[in-house]
């Protein structure tokens, strides 16, 4: 079975990459998980996953210089496909090839998580949302973040991509998060999967180059991400069907 999720937020700084790896590690307890850094213009997953020295990355695959297999690294119980950070790599990469990459990965995994760009302003930034079955929207309880999260959902549903749910990240005690989450859910097609407390552990994990669930598995934030992953009901897409869909990636006509 395969289901692909885009982890998206519309806005930077919400902790999307931390969330992607945390959800990936939690889901990897019961599924075969592949995490892809699909933010090809501003990649940073490699720094979170201890792969800053990775020789072959998604950039090399997208530019036709490497196979998908060569860009896969087994880390923290998951398959991780990091993306490079060089401008040259970005320039030479053909974002349209991402669908081929995802199609190939789909043959051999249960869950694909696409760490998406913090923007909706370019073809390569939107592509993960187009390709995914569902999006996980990472939000902070602020007006700009909620407003951008709503935009992400509208893009997703315009492209036939569903919403798996919302993760409220970097939440502090005083955020009245219960009321904010409840009000937010009126506008989203998915439930609140978890509210993740603001955590020094997340920052320390990033500095240590390790996912939060590996660095501080007993932290409150890690527990919240475990809850979020448990609340995602992974669907069986059938790997061939999914691979075919990624290869064609047809956008439905607007209603």
């Amino acid at each position, binding site marked *: 079975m395969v289901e692909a999720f885009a982890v998206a937020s519309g806005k930077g700084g919400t902790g999307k990459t931390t969330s992607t790896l945390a959800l990936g590690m939690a889901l990897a307890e019961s599924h075969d998980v592949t995490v892809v850094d699909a933010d090809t213009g501003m990649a940073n997953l490699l720094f979170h996953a201890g792969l800053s020295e990775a020789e072959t990355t998604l950039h090399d695959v997208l530019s036709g210089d490497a196979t998908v297999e060569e860009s896969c690294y087994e880390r923290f119980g998951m398959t991780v496909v990091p993306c490079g950070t060089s401008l040259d790599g970005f320039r030479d990469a053909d974002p349209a090839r991402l669908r081929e990459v995802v199609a190939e990965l789909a043959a051999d995994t249960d869950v694909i998580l696409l760490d998406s760009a913090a923007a909706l302003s370019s073809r390569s930034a939107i592509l993960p949302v187009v390709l995914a079955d569902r999006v996980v929207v990472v939000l902070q309880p602020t007006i700009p973040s909620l407003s951008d999260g709503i*935009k992400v959902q509208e893009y997703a549903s315009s492209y036939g991509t569903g919403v798996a749910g919302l993760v409220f990240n970097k939440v502090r005690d005083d955020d009245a998060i219960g*009321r904010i989450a409840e009000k937010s859910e009126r506008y989203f097609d998915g439930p609140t999967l978890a509210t993740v407390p603001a955590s020094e552990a997340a920052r320390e994990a990033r500095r240590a180059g390790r996912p939060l669930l590996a660095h501080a598995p007993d932290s409150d934030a890690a527990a919240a991400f475990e809850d979020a992953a448990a609340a995602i009901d992974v669907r069986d897409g059938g790997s061939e069907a999914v691979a075919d869909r990624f290869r064609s990636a*047809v956008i439905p006509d607007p209603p």
Partner: protein
Amino acid sequence: MNLPDGRLLKSRVVSDPRYPLAEALDRNLTGYAVLEPQETLLLEGEGRGVVTFRDGVPDLTYATGTERGGPAALGDLAMPGPYHVELYELPDDAFDALDDAAAFRVPPGMPAERLAGDPALAASTRRAAPDARVDAGTGSGDASDGDSDGAESRAPEDRSAVEAFLDDEEKIEAIREQARREAEARAEEWGFD
């Protein structure tokens, strides 16, 4: 809020309200920015917002559509771009005549946090603000020196602004509609075939 006419420095369309705030800070601007979201219908009629600056630091805000000032105006203006932005310069003493200014005042870092969602810019703005203004912001949650992870504390009025935003169904529906139109136009433009 009656502002004197300033000297136009810049006029452009930007995708993010961060631009005028960062530009004013860089220029150490005394003057004001007029922001007009492309979808002015979101601000009920004549939807423009004004943010004044003293030495680069935001001072007063006003939203023409809702006729609200201060933090509430920032809530009215917080919406997806693009914005048409004009930046005006004023003489240093131009604000002295505004004796009703208190109702329009915002803590220095609040526009960067609420409009741009940029805690780093908010922190730089607070550092540039005179001590008296930062101190005056204490209690409204704006005096802390936030970092880029947005871990600084937020004020009660900020929370209620988020809830007020979520209660404004008309505004959110307009945001959704705009996003849907963008998404469809982009699908066509970029040929997701």
